[in-house]
């Protein structure tokens, strides 16, 4: 059985918009528009989309905070809202911009309180805390009040807090937002480690695509409340025509751009001394071999496709053209 199942999940909000001086008009906004997804145990799922695409709303429906307007959700086989407290014992939640920690108390106290809140046996709790302390380097600020922690330190605390009861599923809403590079690395490294162990399912929303590239094999892109891509990052690239590039530096410019089968020239730079080929069906070796016969090569480099660019293109794509999801 899938650990997370969504069938036709939908969420509408009614907002009142001012029209004229006194009149207000009700408008319905569909934040999540019929999402069908299954997530298997141990999967690491990246859930991305532009602002307002419905990422956080989906997470709130899966954690029992919001009630779906239509459709169904099951997490660990439970209905999130109806069985909220039972589900809470089995999931961990990190909302990047909200805290589960006690502001005025030392970080250590929050961990101890959560042991009571989640009724975790002392030995289990101690073992998990020990592991987090070493993996996330908590020791130097364990006795500091949370309000005095840096954002990066606090986020490491939040991650620990979400894991002390040994959740089966960990939901992370923007866990690296606003973090410095070092803290981002620490958080990513920790989550990667958690994913490798294989028994925690991870669902991660993010703006930072480096998170996804580092952590998630499966990527779900949502826009205007709908899934526009569901599959691997490689599948995303092949589907939206993003290709690896071969950049060839030449000693001198060629009279005309060379024609290589399966690798059209994408750009000509530096007065013709730098050629950029897009790899369609040709391999790097074929491009190099083909070029070597035509010109003197100074340098060859390969540029991996930029997922950021692909996703940006995806967001700009017209509304209905890419609705059908690719099977994972």
């Amino acid at each position, binding site marked *: 059985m899938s650990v997370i199942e969504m069938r036709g999940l939908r969420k509408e909000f009614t907002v009142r918009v001012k029209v004229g001086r006194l009149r207000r008009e009700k408008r319905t906004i569909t934040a999540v528009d019929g999402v069908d997804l299954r997530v298997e145990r141990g999967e690491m799922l990246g859930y991305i989309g532009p602002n307002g695409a419905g990422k956080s709303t989906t997470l709130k429906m899966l954690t029992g905070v*919001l009630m779906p307007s239509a459709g169904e959700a099951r997490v660990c086989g439970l209905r999130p809202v109806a069985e909220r407290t039972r589900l809470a014992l089995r999931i961990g939640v990190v909302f990047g911009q909200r805290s589960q920690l006690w502001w005025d108390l030392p970080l250590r106290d929050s961990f101890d309180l959560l042991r009571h809140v989640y009724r975790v046996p002392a030995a289990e709790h101690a073992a998990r805390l020990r592991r987090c302390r070493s993996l996330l380097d908590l020791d130097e600020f364990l006795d500091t009040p949370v309000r005095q922690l840096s954002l990066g330190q606090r986020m490491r605390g939040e991650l620990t807090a979400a894991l002390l009861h040994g959740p089966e599923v960990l939901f992370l809403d923007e866990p690296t937002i606003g973090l410095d590079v070092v803290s981002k690395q620490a958080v990513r490294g920790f989550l990667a480690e958690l994913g490798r162990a294989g028994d925690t399912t991870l669902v991660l929303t993010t703006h930072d695509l480096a998170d996804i590239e580092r952590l998630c094999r499966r990527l779900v892109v949502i826009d205007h409340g709908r899934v526009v891509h569901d599959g691997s990052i490689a599948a995303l690239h092949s589907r939206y025509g993003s290709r690896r590039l071969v950049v060839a530096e030449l000693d001198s410019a060629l009279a005309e751009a060379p024609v290589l089968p399966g690798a059209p020239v994408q750009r000509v730079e530096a007065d013709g001394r730098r050629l950029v080929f897009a790899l369609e069906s040709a391999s790097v070796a074929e491009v190099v071999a083909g070029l070597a016969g035509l010109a003197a090569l100074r340098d060859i480099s390969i540029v991996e496709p930029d997922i950021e660019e692909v996703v940006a293109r995806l967001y700009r794509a017209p509304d209905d053209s890419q609705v059908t999801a690719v099977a994972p």
Partner: protein
Amino acid sequence: MAEPGLVAERRPGALAAYRALLGAQARSQAAYRTSFVVDLVGNVGATVFDVVTVLVLFGVTRELGGFTLREALVIVGISAFGFATADLLVGNIERLPRYVRTGLLDAVLVRPLGALPQLLLMDLPLRKVSRAVFGLGVLVVAVTSAGLDWTAARLALVVVAPLAAIVFFGSVFVTTATVSFYWIDSGELANSVTYGGRDFTSYPITVYGGWFRAVFAYGIGFAFVSYHPALALLGRADPLGLPAWVGWASPGVALVAAAVAAAAWRVGVRHYRSTGS
């Protein structure tokens, strides 16, 4: 879709969890020791003011609405103690819009405990303890100096009626706070009912008149908080003509109010979950 654990989660260990939350709140407030002591003293002020107002009134008149100072003090005592204690335990729920805005409501909803008790315990204003203690003092002085004709039933009532007043005021706090689930700027309206109720219950309701008395006394039920129990304690007939047993009805009225509050909270949280507002 009923939510389990609205008031108290009946699962072994939930009580220990709530106790831990209370301890955390105490330690959090102790982190600001000086300001805590200042607040503790400053907070008595409001309740002292309520009582002094009544004393001042009796400086210019011998009777108020047909009641002597000693009789009126019993009413004031029940009201002051009941309100101050309810304000201490439940009063901060009026900050619900802030909990929604800062995400505290979402944070407590993803924990395996009831949302309302968590919110109350995590924001319990312990500095208001001083007020409740002062209110208790006024109540004790009032009932010991009123020359009551003590019977077993009245002894029971003198304990139960203030508790019922706490429950009633607490229910009013919760019910009015849930309005902000629908209408975020409802704070003023809520205050007019809660603080208005406190002022209303500080005097014999005979001093009020017309529709205002009808609405506050029997529409909302504030007459049962302090006025009618005081009549029963004093052994006086109601000048407004209600039968004597009404004085003993306050626990029942408080339970009805609590049920209304619980229902309002449930419906409010459900609305929040369907609108996310």
